[in-house]
Structure formats: C-alpha cells, structure tokens
C-alpha cells in the first residue's frame, strides 16, 4: 500500500491539472497571461529533495512515467513533457548532493526547476512549430506567472507533502538496508 502512495498522488495531480484552468482566478487565465500548472513537476522536485537517497532515482522514473501521461492526455505531442520532467528532475537530483533539504532550498529548487522546465518546453515547442511566441513575450506572459503560480502551489502543499515524504523515506529506505 505504501508503495503506491506516491504514484497515486502524482496521478491525482495529473488529473487536477486538467481542471486547474477552471478554478484559477479569471484575471490569471485571460488577460494574455499563459499560466501553466506544473504541479506534477513540483511534486517530483520535492521527491528528489526529501525522499530520494544519493543513489536512488525514483523521482526520475516517476518523471518519465507521469511526463508521458501528461503528454498523452493533454497535448497529444508525445515525449516533450516526458523528456523535460525527467531531465530537470535528474539535474536537480545531482544538485541535491551539495544542498541540504529544507524549506528555502525547496523554494529555490522549485523556482529554478519550473523555470528551466518551462523554458525547455518552450524551446521544443518553438522548434516543432506548436508556438511562435517571441521570447520577450514568453518571459513576461508565461514564464514569470508560471513560476509564481507553482511557487504558491508549493507553499500551500509543502507541509503536507514533506511530512508524507519524510515519513515514507524512513519506511522504505530503512527496509532496504
């Protein structure tokens, strides 16, 4: 049962992202802002920060699986989210070797991670031709609001998620040793 908690949470987040546009405040959705919820990625980054050990890569594997899920269900262009989520999570995983796990590191990691991920997605979509936004517009209309929205999500769900992750870490990894 405890093994499926993390995949289940990530799955629920994938589903919730689909209704996010409906319950986000109207002025964020219209008005030319392109706020994109990356809640799965935020949770993945928390998993890297608080759950994964130095030599376990659960978050990267989850990134591959749930990135692909987002691709299939919401965009129809396979591989973009899968690649981005996995690579960003892996990079942050490497970074965690020099950083401690605490609240401020989590904020820093999520801000950098979401910004980089969104930039990667923008770059891929620009090359493929799904978007033709110039990068100045992209910065103000999409990247900055997106990072802020996801930081708000992080701050709201941080206590709950981190408590769970730390608990699960103790349970899972002590069993293995």
């Amino acid at each position, binding site marked *: 049962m405890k093994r499926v908690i993390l995949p289940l949470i990530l799955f629920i987040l994938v*589903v919730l992202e689909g209704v996010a546009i409906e319950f986000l405040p*109207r002025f964020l959705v219209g008005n030319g802002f392109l706020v994109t919820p990356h809640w799965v990625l935020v949770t993945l980054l928390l998993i890297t920060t608080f759950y994964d050990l130095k030599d376990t890569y659960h978050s990267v594997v989850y990134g591959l699986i749930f990135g692909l899920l987002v691709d299939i269900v919401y965009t129809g262009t396979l591989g973009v989210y899968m690649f981005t989520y996995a690579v960003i999570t892996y990079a942050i995983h490497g970074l965690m070797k020099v950083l401690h796990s605490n609240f401020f590191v989590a904020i820093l990691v999520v801000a950098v991670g979401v910004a980089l991920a969104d930039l990667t997605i923008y770059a891929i979509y620009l090359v493929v031709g799904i978007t033709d936004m110039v990068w100045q517009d992209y910065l103000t209309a999409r990247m900055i609001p997106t990072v802020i929205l996801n930081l708000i999500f992080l701050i709201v769900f941080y206590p709950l998620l981190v408590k769970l992750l730390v608990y699960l870490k103790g349970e899972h990894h002590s069993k293995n040793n």
Partner: protein
Amino acid sequence: MSFFRKKRLFILLIGIIVLVALIGYSLSNRGNLTTAEQFINDSVGVAQRVIHKPIDFITNIFGNIDDIKNTYSENRLLREKLAEYKGLVYEVQEIKEENEELREIVEKTESIRDFNPIQATVTARSPERWVEQITINKGSQAGVKPNMAVITANGMVGKIQSTSPFTSTVQLLTGFDQFNRISATVSREEESDIFGLVEEYDKETDSLLFKIIEESEKDLEEGELVVSSGLGGVFPAGLVIGEVKEVIPDQYGLTRTALVKPAANFYEIDNVIVVDRVLPGVEEEEQ
C-alpha cells in the same frame, strides 16, 4: 569517473533521439490514436469525471453569485427581446413548413443543415496553454468521430481532434491553424452572399481570420454574423462562428480579411454538442 560521464552523456543522447522520434511520430498527421493512448485517455477520463463534479459544483456557486448581481438589468433586457421573438418564432415555423413542403416536391429530403446532436460534458482542459484542447466525456462508442464540429449554445467552439472509446479531445477554434479551415459565409438578404474560409486564430487581436473569396457588391459591415456554409464537406451549414469586428486588406492587397470575434466564450465551456452531419461528406463517401 570518465566512464560514468560518458555513460551519462550516452543516456542523454539516447533520450534526445527518443524525444525526436516520439515528436516526429506524433506530429506525422496520424489519423487515429494507438490503443495504448486510447486506453490511457479513457482511464484518466474516468478519474477526471470524478474530480470534475465537486469542482464544477464550487465554480458554479461563484458563477451563480455573479449572475444574481446582474439579474435585474438582464431581466429587463430579456423581456424586451422576448416580445420580439414571439413574432419571429411564428415566422420561422411558417418558413420551416414551407421549406419542408418544397423539399418534398423536389424529392430532396437530406440537407447540409441537418445534423444529429450528441450531448457531451467537458471534463478537462489542457493545462498546456499553447495546446488549445479540451476533453469531453463522449467517445467513439457514442458515435463521435474525428473532424466533427463541436458547438455550444452560443456558437461553434472547435472540432473533434481524436477519439477514444469513452472520451474524445476537442481542438478549440483558438488553436486552429492554416490546416484547419472552415468554409463560412455571411448571409445577405438581397445581394449575393459572401463566401470565404475561416483560417486561423490571431492571438494579437483575439479574433478568427475570415479570408473572403467571393466579394459581394456591398462591403462587409461590423456586427454581421459569420456562419459555416457547409461547403467544406465536413461541418453542416448554419453553425454560428462569430461576428465581424473589422475588415482589413490581406498582406498582398488582393483579397480582404475580416476579423471575426468568436461567438462562444472559450473559457467557460461546460456542456457542448458534437455535431454529426447527416449528409455524408466527400471523404466518407469514398471510403
């Protein structure tokens, strides 16, 4: 150490190759989704339906509060309109009957206006804002097929992009590019109608571009209604697309383009109707 670096680089390169292959595969104009994708879409669709119920309930409460604020002024306006409609309804009924009689005389019962409606509810909207796509709770089991038009009470919102057995995805008009054209027309009472193609959505002006093919003697005016003409062979005729906002010459100055304000609101879509055209289109007849 250098071995590990090489391995890491190797994995990254393989990842990029897989990425390019997957993107290439999914952009290659494939007609249908693979079985695995359909299965995943349907399973996520079930969860979306469950989660959508309470969220819908909450957003509706806020919507209702907003509605109550405007009730009085709206009510007055609607009463005036209602009086106008009474006369109109009678007239339409007469014309419909006459039309049917005439059709029977010429033995042509099918019309490009006829369609079977399939009612559906929106369960999700893509969080990726560049992909203008929503998910509805009816799929190929209910008779939904790719390329069918999707409308709301206000007007056309998009077309079916892909179907799974129990869900399907709708591409919104805001996500239309040059490859998704709608043949449209502006109906005139006396002069000849204006025909053209609604080609793509212009994000800067928030309007659809209606490229005029056949000009009428009289110029297009602001506020004129653009409806689908049914000539493209995919959508039925008479679906409201939007109102003319402005007319501008195109980049070569040879034809003119009308900016059309879509009739439907793309951010508040709850219930939609999938339009199943009765008269088969050209493509279907060939099959």
